Every structure is written in C-alpha cells, then in structure tokens.
C-alpha cells in the first residue's frame, strides 16, 4: 500500500518533471543542505540554553521565543526541498533503509513536540531565573539534540544506498518519452515482462550519469 502510494507520488506531473530535469535533484539537495546550514544551529542554541550550557546572558525567552518563527520558516524550507527529493524518487526512497530510519526519527520528533511543547517550550516563563533548569527541560533538550543528530546521520546515509535495479520510475521515465504511451500513469502496467529490457538499459544509463 505504501509502496503504491510512493509510485503514485513519483508519477504525478511535478515529480516527473523534476526527475527528468537537468540537475533538478542536485539543486534541491544543495538547497536542502544550505537551509540546514542556515537554520539548524537555531535548534542547537535553543537546546543548549535549555541545558543551561550556553550562551550566557540570554533569558530562555530571548532564545526560545525569538527563534521560534525563524526556526519554523527554516524547517519549512528544508522540509519542502526534502519532500520534493523524496517525491521524485519516492519508490527508491521507500526502499532505502536510512530513509526509513529518518522517517521513524521524524515520528519521534513529532512525539517529542507533543510531549514537550506544552510542558517546556510554551512555558518559557517557568524556566527563567538562575536556578538550575527543571529535569523536564533538560530531558527535552537532550532528546531533541539526539533526535536531530540522528536525522542528520540517517539523511547522509540515504546517499550511501544504491537504488535497486527494479525501480519503476526508470521505466516510466522512458514511457513518457514515447509518444504512443503518454498516459502511462499506472506503474503496474509498465512493469510487464516486455519492459524488462528497457528497464535494464535505463538503469545502466542512470548509473553512467553518476
């Protein structure tokens, strides 16, 4: 079910256009990493402040409240690029173990937000003062750092897994270039035994690109 959703996603017009574009994937990846470079340190600063580690002379509110909006904008930029990269090769990503780990970690980030946002991040006033931060704030910060570090590692790992030789989009990419079959949205139809040869050829061409 998930796999067919992935195949559906990668065959909608936008994803297909991106996949067949020159340097589309590389450009999105570079934008993805650029936005990480510009915005990820805001998460680190927030968590270090909650851990009472750095920087001195800033109230919790100075950091948490003033970085909330930029962090969200940054996350949207990073996530949008990431989603497009996933979408244009959704089947390949779906089968990638590091991508699965990354999605799992994002699920844990969502749980983290559900648990700690009402208790820590939205109750900044309770955390002010020179006293040591409460345990729940330290736990929120430590878990956040751990999760985001894991997401960086898993994200880098994705590139280490080579796509399996049976990815549907290699066939479909070719089908779109054939005028006879421009309505080839149904991936299952494409995977007939007839197309096995062209599948291999497309795969070979793909490898040569890199």
């Amino acid at each position, binding site marked *: 079910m998930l796999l067919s959703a992935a195949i559906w996603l990668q065959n909608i017009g936008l994803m297909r256009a991106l996949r067949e574009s020159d*340097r589309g994937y*590389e450009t999105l*990846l*570079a934008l993805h*990493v*650029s936005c*990480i*470079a*510009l*915005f*990820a*340190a*805001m998460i*680190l*600063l927030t968590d270090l402040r909650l851990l009472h580690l*750095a*920087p*001195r*002379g*800033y109230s919790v509110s*100075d950091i948490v409240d*003033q*970085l909330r*909006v*930029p962090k969200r904008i940054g996350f949207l930029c990073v996530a949008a690029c990431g989603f497009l990269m996933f979408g244009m090769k959704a089947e390949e990503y779906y089968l990638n173990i590091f991508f699965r780990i990354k999605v799992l970690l994002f699920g844990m980030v969502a749980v983290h937000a559900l648990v700690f946002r009402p208790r820590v991040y939205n109750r900044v006033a309770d955390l002010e003062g020179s006293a040591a931060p409460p345990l729940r704030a330290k736990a929120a910060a430590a878990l956040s750092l751990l999760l985001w*570090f894991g997401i*960086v*590692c898993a994200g*880098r*790992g994705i590139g*280490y897994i080579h796509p399996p030789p049976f990815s549907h989009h290699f066939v479909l990419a070719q089908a779109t270039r054939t005028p006879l079959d421009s309505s080839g949205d149904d991936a299952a139809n494409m995977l007939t035994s007839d197309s096995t040869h062209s599948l291999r050829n497309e795969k070979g061409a793909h490898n040569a690109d*890199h």
Partner: protein
Amino acid sequence: MGENPLNVSPWTFPILEVTHIVSFAIAIGTIAIVDFRLLGLAMLRQTPGKLTADTRLWTMVSLSVALFSGLLMYSTDPDKFYLNVSFLFKIVCLILAILFHYTIHRRIVLTAASGGQAKVVACVSIALWVGVVFGGIFIEFVKEGLSFS
C-alpha cells in the same frame, strides 16, 4: 607510499562527513543568526554586536573542525577533488566567505551600522556561505575536469 589510514575502514569517511556537516552547520548557522539580525529578521532584542561576540567562539571552533574534517576527506582522494570544477568553486567561495566574515562583515557588526549597508553585507555573507554548500554538494555530480557541464 603508504596507504592513507583514512582509507582502511569503510566507516571513516561517513564519520568525517557527519562531523563536517554538523560543524559547518554550527559555523554557518551562528554567522547566519547575525546576518538575520542585520536584516532585521530575528533576535531583535539583542544587537548584532552582542550576538557576534557571544557566538564568535562557536563560529571559530566549528569552522576549524569543518576545515580540518574537510582536509581529511580531501586527503582520501586528492585527485578526485583538485580537478573538480565544483570543488574549486567551493574553495573560492570559502576563501571569500572567510575573508569577508573577518573583515567587512566584522566591521559592519562592530560599528553597529544599520540600514541598507548592513543588509547588503548580510546578503553577501549568506550568498557566499550558500555558495560554499552548493560547491560542496555538486562535487559528486559534475564530471571530472575543469569545465561546467
């Protein structure tokens, strides 16, 4: 010629890469916070000068780690890199970005300049660092040789 010890374990390169990513994210991110402040987009309760003073050590240490881990990655296969047009682009951007950061950028922040001049400096700073990242990513994707294609 002995084998580069970095090429012995398959784990070395990924660990260097993650170290590189985390350290450049801290280096560029701390600079970007000052840039966003110069643009009037974040941390408005603090002055750009205070933000720079408080993040300077973080920037310097993480930039050093990023440079060192990058140098180690370069050493695993120098031939692959020095004849790569994207790598050369990255190095040019990096040199310009560091020079810009410790000269013009620093002066604007310290003199508490604001308005158009500060915004231009912030944009140039962000553009140079994004250029470094783009150059780094495209190393894997451009063909060997010194032409863009």
